[in-house]
């Protein structure tokens, strides 16, 4: 039988609250939803290690704001591709600004000043701000004290990691959104034999999806074993 080549769908780009497995982060999600809708806390700073879904949540907030017809902007600060601070000019008028990975501008004087200027104007207009980081605001190595204290002013929350049971639930939910049916046994197999890091698991889920489409098979344990053999790094 001829192999069917699947189309390269990127399922990862529908980041909203309904595709996020909350686990023990319900309180954080509730606060973020309120903020994105223009209610609740005006400023939220949340932190946690990599791979817990901070970028997903920030983009979900922007989507939520968009649904409520509120202007929104998602700003990803990647260390290797830091944008020019001019990107902040005029953004103070945006009703919701979400800044991802603020850690990557710490110690960068130009960026810290630009962010400080933006913060004051944005705050004055009573617009909403959500910031993510890998550590709490007062542990960041920000050299501008005025910026540092302002970041600690709003609601500071931690994003909690998931336990294995919750990871299985998250995995099953993610698979469902991709149209894949993972049995609890298969999900458990993936978690115990594959990686436990969620972003890598999502990557692997994409591989399974492609393989099931190509082979016209269900995501069974034998199929996963085959994929694992082809991807030794996992």
């Amino acid at each position, binding site marked *: 039988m001829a192999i069917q080549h699947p189309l390269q769908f990127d399922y990862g780009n529908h980041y909203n609250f309904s595709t996020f497995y909350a686990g023990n982060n*319900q309180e954080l999600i509730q606060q973020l939803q309120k903020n994105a809708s223009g209610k609740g806390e005006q400023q939220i700073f949340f932190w946690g290690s990599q791979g817990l879904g901070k970028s997903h949540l920030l983009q979900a907030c*922007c989507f939520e704001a968009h649904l409520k017809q509120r202007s929104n902007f998602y700003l*990803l600060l990647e260390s290797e591709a830091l944008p020019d601070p001019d990107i902040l000019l005029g*953004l103070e008028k945006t009703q919701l600004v979400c800044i991802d990975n603020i850690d990557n501008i710490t110690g960068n004087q130009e960026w810290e000043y630009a962010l400080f200027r933006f913060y004051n104007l944005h705050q004055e207009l009573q617009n909403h701000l959500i910031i993510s980081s890998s550590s*709490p605001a007062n542990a960041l190595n920000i050299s501008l004290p005025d910026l*540092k204290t302002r970041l600690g002013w709003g609601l500071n929350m931690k994003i909690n990691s998931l336990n294995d049971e919750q990871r299985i639930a998250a995995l099953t939910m993610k698979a469902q959104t991709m149209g894949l049916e993972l049995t609890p046994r298969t999900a458990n197999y993936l978690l115990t034999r594959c990686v436990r890091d969620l972003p890598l698991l999502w990557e692997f889920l994409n591989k399974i999806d492609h393989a099931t489409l190509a082979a016209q098979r269900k995501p069974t344990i034998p199929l996963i074993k085959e994929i694992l053999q082809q991807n030794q790094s996992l």
Partner: protein
Amino acid sequence: MSSLWNTCLSILEDEISSSDFSTWIRPLQAEEENNQIKLLAPNRFVLDWVKEHHFSKIEQTVQQFSKGDYSISLAIGSKKNNTEVIPLAVKRNTPTKNKRPNFINLAFTFENFVEGKSNQLAKAASIQVSENVGKTYNPLLIYGGSGLGKTHLMHAIGTAILKKKPSANIIYLHSEKFVQDMVKALQQNSINSFKEYYRTVDTLLIDDIQFFAGKERSQEEFFHTFNNLLEKKHQVILTCDKYPKEIEGLEDRLKSRFGWGLPVAIEPPDLETRAAILMKKAMQANVELSQEVAFFIGKRIPSNVRDLEGALRRVIANSQFTGKPITIDFTKEALHDLISLQDKLVNIENIQKTVSEYFKIRNSDLVSKNRKQSIVRPRQIAMCLARELTSHSLPEIGDAFGGREHTTVINACKRIKDLRDSDIKVQEDYANLLRTLSL
């Protein structure tokens, strides 16, 4: 919003990476008129980026779904909509015809400013100024670390002036805004209007003047504005994160002028004031906070008022989410992450290191039996700081200082408390160290 643009968005979402979509595509606001979609970008940077990287795909998608009936263009701007927020100050101070916004936040008053030893002089001077505009202390300069209430006092002065005279011509702004406005005025050839704008106010409040450092042209302009206002006996109120003479990159003539009136310091609040601030903030949020819990948070978050407020927000949010009352145990749990971090940042070892560096003595001197005055005083200060900033017991503190008795720690704390009341040098040293350790 344009329904055609919404259709295009759902298509583009599948074709562009999620982060690129959230940054460059979704924020564009669409205006649809006469078979034309105008996409508004928030600034030049976004516009240029979209033009270079995504515009052809956007154009292609619009053409496809409008069957070639629509054209598309990009511009900088934003749509005016019903949900647009009016700045707080403007909303609360309904401006009369032709009256400019003053940006005073009326939520900040003298009544809701919690007074303690660390800020009572600054508060008293601020009240004086608000009651005798341009007559008593001009300029009034409030200086101190970040997050200690300088901006609150500044707005409180403005609020009090407006309460007495609602038509008062008064402006609050951050020094960065002054610089920004001046640059804009230079670009647009409207420097005379800029000068007139700032030189015709009755009261000018400028926050964080340390940001004038290194900006010579802005300093020059501010110098003339400042002189002009003072000549006319109009009030100038300034804040700064340090005593102006300590600011590098600030012209000497400005440094000297800033000191003409009354410079007043605002220090980090002591434990009692921190607890009082928390209770007042909780009351404003209609939340009951016991004194016991307020002291607990105040003790564990010894840094600045913003951090205190952040911690209180966390406790209140958690209590509202879980429906549990705010007790000590509940607060411990809610602030678990912040407290453990604070403990890591401020510990006895760190205090000893900071104190020995400050007094230029060896770390080992602090734990030695040396009884020279030059060693004893720093040791007593370090013990006192350890008591204020950590949750270690007195025997533990004594132990960390060369195995001393807990009664030695009690005596040290009492001695430093007395000296802070009588000796300005000790008062300053203690405040400086507290500020360094709390940042």
